[in-house]
């Protein structure tokens, strides 16, 4: 870990538990607390963080995971019925998203890629607004400043640099506040990306900048094993978490289907960043159970046995087992979760139908923040052209 500062007493332990020690091809240590069978294990560093999660919080994790899976099913159905142009399913990655997002605080800022529907849910983004992009009525959909949740970024990894720059802004805000004796809450940034995007140069550059400026950013890589049809092995010959060592900051692989471990590790990482100790890379080891998008066919490139093996590690099943075994949730709770999910699906379906198709004039209006003569000229032409059809219509009537 070099000079990277960790909480007292954790440095040696982390060195052993993180991916940093593994050589290419070697199996890597993975932080796991809740196993696929629903039993809770322990970790020398992160059990302490897991203890902060009270039963109510655990039930919220489960509820959110179930709701977003139900939402995912509904959005997939909406696409199949022609209501959405495309859908990007998240099924299988619920724990990675819900667990990490719940570790964020309202002052933290999040840069998603385009599959982070679970994170959006936790950050209180209206999921109907999230569907606007996939219905073709917006290229964004929500106000990022309301929930500190940036717009989806479709050009892979571009947002990782935005996240680092934003984090550099937080550092400066804190210095400006200190200079004027005012307070600025300690904040961090999470940059979400995937194993495919990890090959993009912008990920490398973002990690170089983050390390150089000690920026308060957590790189959260969901390794879901497939970049459309290409397996992770083509993107990397070492565990992705290992790459952090090359940049000089901690890298941790966590079981991405274990909401408790994901939350514990992310909470640690965000504290590390907020306290000025620099960036962290988290590799959430998970699996995209469904297709890359509704335009994809996984049977062309992977074995169904692989999918079946990962279904055995399902993030919801294991938390349900734990909640039931420990007596933390009863049948009525699970019935309620199902009812809530159906309610959300109903809401999303009805609002999707009602999503307003924008006027292209709104597009003219938002190209530039300040007045621009070419925009004005082209809009004027369009108005005149459109008015021609209207007068034709009137004449016909």
């Amino acid at each position, binding site marked *: 870990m070099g000079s990277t500062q960790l909480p007292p007493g954790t440095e040696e332990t982390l060195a052993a538990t993180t991916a940093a020690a593994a050589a290419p091809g070697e199996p890597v240590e993975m932080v796991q607390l809740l196993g696929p069978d629903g039993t809770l294990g322990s970790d020398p560093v992160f059990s302490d963080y897991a203890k902060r999660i009270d039963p109510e919080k655990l039930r919220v994790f489960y509820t959110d995971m179930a709701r977003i899976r139900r939402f995912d099913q509904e959005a997939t159905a909406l696409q199949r019925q022609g209501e959405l142009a495309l859908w990007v399913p998240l099924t299988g990655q619920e724990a990675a998203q819900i667990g990490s997002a719940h570790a964020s605080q309202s002052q933290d800022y999040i840069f998603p890629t385009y599959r982070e529907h679970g994170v959006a849910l936790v950050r209180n983004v209206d999921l109907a607004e999230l569907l606007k992009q996939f219905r073709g009525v917006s290229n*964004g959909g929500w106000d990022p400043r309301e929930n500190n949740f940036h717009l989806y970024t479709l050009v892979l990894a*571009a947002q990782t640099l935005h996240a680092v720059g934003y984090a550099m802004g937080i550092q400066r805000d804190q210095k400006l506040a200190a200079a004027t004796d005012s307070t600025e809450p300690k904040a961090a940034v999470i940059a979400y990306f995937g194993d495919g995007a990890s090959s993009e140069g912008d990920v490398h550059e973002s990690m170089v900048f983050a390390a150089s400026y000690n920026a308060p950013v957590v790189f959260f890589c969901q390794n879901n094993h497939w970049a459309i049809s290409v397996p992770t092995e083509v993107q990397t010959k070492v565990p992705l978490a290992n790459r952090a060592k090359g940049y000089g900051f901690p890298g941790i692989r966590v079981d991405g289907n274990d909401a408790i471990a994901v939350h514990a590790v992310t909470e640690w990482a965000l504290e590390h960043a907020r306290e000025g100790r620099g960036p962290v890379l988290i590799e959430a080891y998970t699996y995209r159970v469904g297709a890359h998008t509704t335009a994809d066919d996984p049977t062309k490139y992977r074995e169904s046995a692989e999918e079946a093996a990962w279904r055995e590690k399902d993030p919801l099943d294991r938390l349900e087992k734990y909640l039931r075994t420990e007596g933390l949730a009863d049948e009525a709770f699970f019935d309620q979760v199902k009812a809530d999910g159906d309610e959300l699906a109903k809401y999303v379906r009805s609002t999707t139908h009602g999503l307003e198709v924008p006027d292209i004039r709104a597009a003219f209006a938002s190209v530039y*923040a300040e007045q621009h003569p070419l925009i004005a000229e082209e809009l004027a032409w369009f108005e005149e052209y459109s008015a021609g059809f209207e007068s034709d219509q009137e004449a016909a009537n």
Partner: protein
Amino acid sequence: MATMTIAKAINEGLRASLTNNPKSLLMGEDIGHLGGVYRVTDGLIKEFGDERVLDTPLAESGIVGTAIGLALRGYSPVCEIQFDGFVYPAFNQITTQLAKIHARSLGKLTVPVVIRIPYGGGIGSIEHHSESPEALFAHTAGLRIISPSNAHDAYWMIQKAIECQDPVIFFEPKRRYWLKGEVDVENAGLSEDPFKAHVVREGADATIVAYGPLVPVALAAANAATEDGRSIEVIDLRSISPLDFDTVEASVKKTGRLIVAHEAPTFGGIGGEIAARISERAFLHLEAPVIRVGGFHMPYPVAKVEEDYLPDIDKILEALDRSLSY
């Protein structure tokens, strides 16, 4: 009034912005202690510290990408790309991200990033150090592209670029960095609006449009033409996007003839755009086709033959002859 070079004028303009706007900052390769390879940022790190003048890692996409993040947090970053030919690693961040964030958010987000790029040839440099890539960016909606040709404009236009809420690419005519001129640091005067073209020489027989490094060449050609009794109007475009077609149109309606000169290749260039627009706006006023003077359709040639490639006085005069004798 003060006399200074264009490089010094930009330096003073940056200093004024850093002083007036606590959220402005500079970032780029070697811009701190070295003061930039052209010394345009000379002395600024001493005055404003390394939180405001950042020597960044050597990564152009990283510079522009992190500048976008800083802008989203409320800062006004001014990036320096060391040379024109090195902007391409940042092309994705500029065109898919910087240019589109305001539109994607339906106006809720602004990204007031300025990207300074020394551009153009004529300095005998090696490969990738003499290019004029402005048309590649002009084709992308959401960006503003400006280029000063004199010290007074340089001083004011860089400040106006930093104030602008839209992303601005600020192309600096590197072979004119040492061109001296009068700068009024109290009054912007005509420089107030960086997006308007200026008629820098009035004339009656033909119009030459140029920008950045070719404005002095266009003026010299116009002066030379007076020896043949020709009265030539010269327009300094100043802004490439938006492009002030009104000023060009008014001039052409007066002179009836138009020459557009730029160092960039003519094919797919700004000159073609001007020719098309003017043919729509002033077709019946044109006495001759619009003639473009610019680079050839080839990679920028080796320095020893760049004189054959670059527009110069003779090439502009030849174009004037063709136009006037049409």
